[in-house]
């Protein structure tokens, strides 16, 4: 071996060592039993109660972070793209809205207990939330999407309610024009276009709208809300759930004071409880404690309004509107309604973690069941093994010993590719596996080019050594050209692709770049080492 050959050899050896070192955590991680792997996935050192425990969990977390991660399409899970609706915010509020929303969503998810959630900002007003392995999609979506704007508002007195609704009736009757001139003989629906759809109006602090009329009333209310010239001393809100009055199903409709007395940010803590409603023992509800400032306001408000009803409004829906029986001094309160246990739990979580600064919409969702992910892994690996096996077999049969050199280069290529993925914390997706498989098929191309060139040179009666030299020298330019073009299209794909598709572009690009090193450099080195040690008269190619 010459000096330069030795250097190359040591360099390669060092490269392989680095690759194996980088991949070692991945080997360890995937060698674990599924149960143990789950434990490692969920390890959170911050949750440890003592130092020993913390170190143990930290080790697990390190192992997890250093190994190649599986994409949601392979391990199962949910990916949500959220958009923060900033249209109703002022410029100052809009500036931080997305960051605030991210923080609050992170808090909510943390309380939900998902292993390794990922929450990233995308562009100006979007948030990408990825929840691996999560099964209860509906609940997670509810938890994330809920604005959780909690407001306490006084319910207007019956007289006030009736007066406001009366004004609306007149407004609509007037708008209907000619029909209203019919006077007393005109149908009720023309004189009182709005409240004729009500079962009761302003009785005991509420009005009741039958189910079949809810949509129509909602449309009329929306019109009024949209009309900025129509100023009302109050706001409207529906109760969150359908109820029954006089044996008929419908929705409670309330007129509330305009400005909230208190808001969710005054809530210090909240818990789901089953013992809040005396009439319905075991009914889930949420008890909350207010901050000292909120508690003081609460005491004042309840003291001044004994006998009236206080509406607890969540995201513009009245959850409950209990009577104020007495002044409540210590800022303790509860929310009851027809909650399921899960809903009450969610409500407690969102109250604790705070309201979103603006409504958040889910604009893209991708969910994969873990069993489908497992299926994809198995099939992907199977296809990879068979594809790789076929290529290896072909190379060995067709190029014999030289084929073995190419296979060696191929193995180093894949090793390097995987090590790069682990090193860059890239995620392996199913298209990513396809990219690796495709890399296997394309990577041998470089060696095929070289070998065919060597064969040609041999046919032209060159010596073996000259043929090898010429073969590599002449083929190299072509190999670079050919790889660069494929790389260009992979780069375009990386730029526009999302999630799994980007995974494909990443593995294909890394694979091709490493290929230019291994297929040419490493295989040439092996040939050089082999040809220098003996008198070479023939070559197995």
């Amino acid at each position, binding site marked *: 071996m010459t000096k330069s050959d030795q250097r190359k050899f040591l360099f390669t050896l060092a490269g392989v060592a680095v690759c194996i070192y980088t991949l070692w955590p991945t080997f360890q991680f995937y060698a674990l039993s599924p149960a143990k792997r789950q434990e490692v996935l969920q390890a959170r050192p911050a949750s440890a109660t003592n130092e020993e425990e913390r170190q143990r969990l930290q080790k697990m977390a390190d192992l997890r972070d250093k190994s190649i991660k599986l994409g949601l399409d392979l391990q199962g899970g949910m990916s949500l793209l959220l958009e923060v609706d900033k249209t109703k915010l002022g410029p100052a509020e809009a500036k931080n809205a997305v960051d605030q929303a991210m923080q609050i969503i992170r808090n909510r998810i943390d309380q939900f207990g998902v292993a390794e959630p990922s929450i990233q900002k995308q562009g100006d007003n979007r948030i990408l939330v990825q929840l691996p392995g999560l099964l209860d999609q509906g609940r997670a979506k509810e938890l994330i999407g809920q604005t959780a704007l909690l407001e306490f508002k006084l319910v207007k007195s019956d007289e006030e309610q009736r007066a406001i609704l009366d004004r609306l009736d007149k407004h609509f009757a007037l708008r209907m024009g000619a029909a209203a001139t019919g006077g007393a003989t005109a149908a009720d629906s023309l004189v009182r276009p709005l409240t004729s759809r009500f079962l009761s109006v302003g009785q005991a602090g509420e009005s009741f709208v039958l189910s079949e009329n809810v949509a129509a009333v909602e449309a009329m209310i929306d019109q009024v809300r949209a009309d900025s010239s129509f100023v009302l001393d109050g706001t409207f809100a529906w109760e969150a759930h359908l109820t029954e009055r006089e044996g008929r199903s419908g929705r409670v409709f309330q007129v509330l004071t305009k400005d909230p007395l208190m808001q969710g940010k005054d809530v210090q803590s909240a818990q789901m409880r089953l013992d809040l409603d005396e009439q319905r023992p075991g009914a889930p509800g949420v008890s909350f404690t207010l901050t000292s400032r909120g508690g003081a306001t609460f005491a004042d408000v309840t003291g001044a309004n004994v006998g009236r009803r206080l509406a607890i409004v969540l995201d513009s829906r009245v959850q409950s509107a209990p009577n104020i029986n007495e002044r409540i001094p210590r800022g303790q309160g509860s929310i009851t309604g027809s909650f399921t246990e899960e809903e009450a739990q969610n409500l407690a979580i969102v109250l604790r973690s705070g309201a979103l600064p603006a409504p958040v919409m889910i604009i893209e969702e991708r969910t994969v069941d873990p*069993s489908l992910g497992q299926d994809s892994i198995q099939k992907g690996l199977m296809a990879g093994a068979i594809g790789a096996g076929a290529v290896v077999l072909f190379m060995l049969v067709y190029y014999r010993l030289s084929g073995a050199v190419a296979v060696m280069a191929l193995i180093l290529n894949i090793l390097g590719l995987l090590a790069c993925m682990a090193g860059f914390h890239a995620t392996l997706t199913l298209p990513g596996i396809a990219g690796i498989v*495709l890399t296997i098929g394309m990577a041998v191309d470089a060696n095929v080019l070289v070998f065919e060139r060597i064969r040609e040179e041999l046919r032209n009666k060159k010596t073996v050594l000259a043929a090898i030299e010429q073969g590599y020298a002449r083929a190299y330019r072509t190999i670079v050209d050919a790889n660069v073009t494929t790389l260009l299209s992979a780069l375009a794909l990386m730029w526009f692709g999302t999630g799994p598709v980007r995974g494909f572009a990443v593995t294909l690009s890394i694979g091709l770049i490493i290929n230019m090193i291994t297929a040419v450099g490493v295989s040439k080195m092996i040939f050089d080492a082999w040809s220098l040690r003996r008198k070479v008269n023939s070559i197995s190619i």
Partner: protein
Amino acid sequence: MLQILHNINVDWMGKRAIAYTISGVCVLISIVSLLVHGGPRYGVDFTGGTLVEVAVIPAPSADNVRHAMDASGIQGAEIQRVPSSGSFLIRMGVGQGGADPAKTVREALQSNLQGSEVKIRSVEGVGPRVGGELRGAAVKAVLLALGLILVYVAIRYDWRYSFGAVAALFHDVFIAFGAVSLTNRELTLTVVAALLTIAGFSINDTIVVFDRIRERKQALRKEAPEKVMNLAVNETLSRTVITSLTVTLTVLALFIFGGEVIHDFSFTMLVGVVFGTYSSVYVASALALDTQLWLERQGKKK
């Protein structure tokens, strides 16, 4: 030494009329298929909407699933059975199925197919605006890739060659695109990824042939360009075939064993690889030759 396609001496260029006919017919079939189907069948990635894959045990017929969906008020959902797994793909338009379409589907099937076990395997929900954005991004990516390749080929080679190379690339990508339409597959993000990979692969093959043409042209200045090209194609033929073979082997493995999720991807790749091989021999070199001959004629006229 085991050899295939050694010492062949085919007059490829002389028979290029046949190749043009074959290519023309394939492109025509693609166009007709796209016209008949009213353009590509876009997946939810691009149109917006929701695609739910659901496994039902015991397996009902597609009609039963359709009736169950209709009965729960989701009209006109597209129902498709996945042959390999026996599950169903249910595709709904934007806004259909309410706030949580997966839950709606599960409840619809559970209440209308009594006693069945219903399991949601995957959900893809894309809002209409995101769909539009992804469509825009896909178009941009394709244009970017083609632009970059065009520039690279133009810099590295004679511009007369780049016309042939790019025409071959369009030819391959378009025929693969047509095959997707012909087999009534959906155009999804992964299929676009396959089309871009085909673009890269197609040009890769072409470049190997072009490299050889350039090399031979320097050595054989006096020979007719037709002869030089034949020689180059013949000399690189074994490499072209072997590389295509290894790539085809891996793509075929993906197609057969890779599972339903990447089935459309591997199908598109397979068509692209086959046509990519053929086009680098024929379309690219033949067009490069004809461009050259045409330019020479123009030059003589002056």
